[in-house]
């Protein structure tokens, strides 16, 4: 499929690049970053101009991010209201929303750069989780600048080895994402072990305290 889209870039130019990037920012499985690299490769060969390729990539990401955020925000009320009917779920939702408000900008920025495979999902979660549009945009737009410049630059620099470099970047991003999940799972595991240890110790401690009162 990637090859088919690559063959369409010389015909449809930056419009195709921008459109595919936009759709991939909505989590539609299309080779957005690959086409931006192809655009960078065509800039290097003199087939395309640098500024329109950069602009198409940047606008595609920004519009895609904002659309995903808006869709999730609009669907949020109905879905959340239904979920909040259960007290337990309502508490979990409140906690998740508080986390997004506290750490949202960092999550959005990282998901536009080193954790870019997670980008579309973070847009949806931000919209659904009630993260403010200003905070979302303040992290997403600089992230989009870095993302666009990185992939156009990589395409330009490694123009004659695009497939190899795309595969290498894909695996490197996979490694970063997996390592992040590993760290989070490790922290979760440690917290779980601590909680278990505290629960086992508490009855003895409580008994000792009771003994003192006697």
């Amino acid at each position, binding site marked *: 499929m990637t090859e088919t889209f690559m063959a369409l870039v010389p015909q449809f130019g930056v419009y195709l690049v921008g459109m595919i990037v936009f759709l991939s920012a909505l989590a539609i499985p299309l080779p957005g970053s690959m086409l931006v690299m192809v655009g960078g490769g065509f800039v290097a060969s003199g087939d395309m101009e640098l500024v329109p390729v950069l602009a198409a990539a940047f606008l595609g990401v920004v519009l895609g991010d904002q659309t995903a955020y808006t869709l999730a925000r609009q669907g949020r009320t109905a879905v959340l209201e239904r979920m909040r009917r259960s007290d337990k779920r309502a508490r979990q939702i409140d906690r998740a929303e508080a986390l997004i408000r506290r750490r949202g900008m960092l999550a959005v920025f990282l998901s536009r750069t080193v954790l870019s495979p997670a980008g579309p999902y973070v847009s949806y979660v931000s919209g659904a989780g009630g993260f403010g549009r200003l905070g979302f945009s303040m992290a997403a737009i600089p992230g989009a600048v870095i993302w666009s410049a990185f992939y156009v630059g990589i395409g330009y620099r490694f123009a004659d080895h695009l497939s190899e470099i795309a595969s290498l970047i894909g695996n*490197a991003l996979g490694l970063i994402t*997996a390592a992040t999940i590993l760290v989070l799972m490790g922290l979760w*595991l440690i917290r779980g072990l601590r909680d278990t240890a505290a629960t086992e110790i508490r009855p003895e401690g409580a008994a000792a305290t009771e003994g003192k009162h006697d």
Partner: protein
Amino acid sequence: MAVAGFLLALVLVLYFAGSVMREMRGFHDAQHEGRPLEGWMTPRYVSMSYRVPPEEILALWQISPDIRRRMTLSEISKLNGMTIDQMQRLVTERARVLRAGGQ
């Protein structure tokens, strides 16, 4: 649950780390070779990859220099009746001659 997640993430880390290392080695080797021609490429792209002037490439492929900008090799193949393999051989040979300092 957390243990299973941790082990799964560990397996993924090892898998991706292995892939990255293998591809970095392959990428280093590939940088010394011209990239095989594919249907989506343009004459200028081939010119850049093989360091053969674009006008020479068009002449080798018996194509007029006035063709539309960004015409792909698939489209050129329909115009000149050559397969991409035939175009590849002509370009590779010309690049070899130019590298050897020939005219």
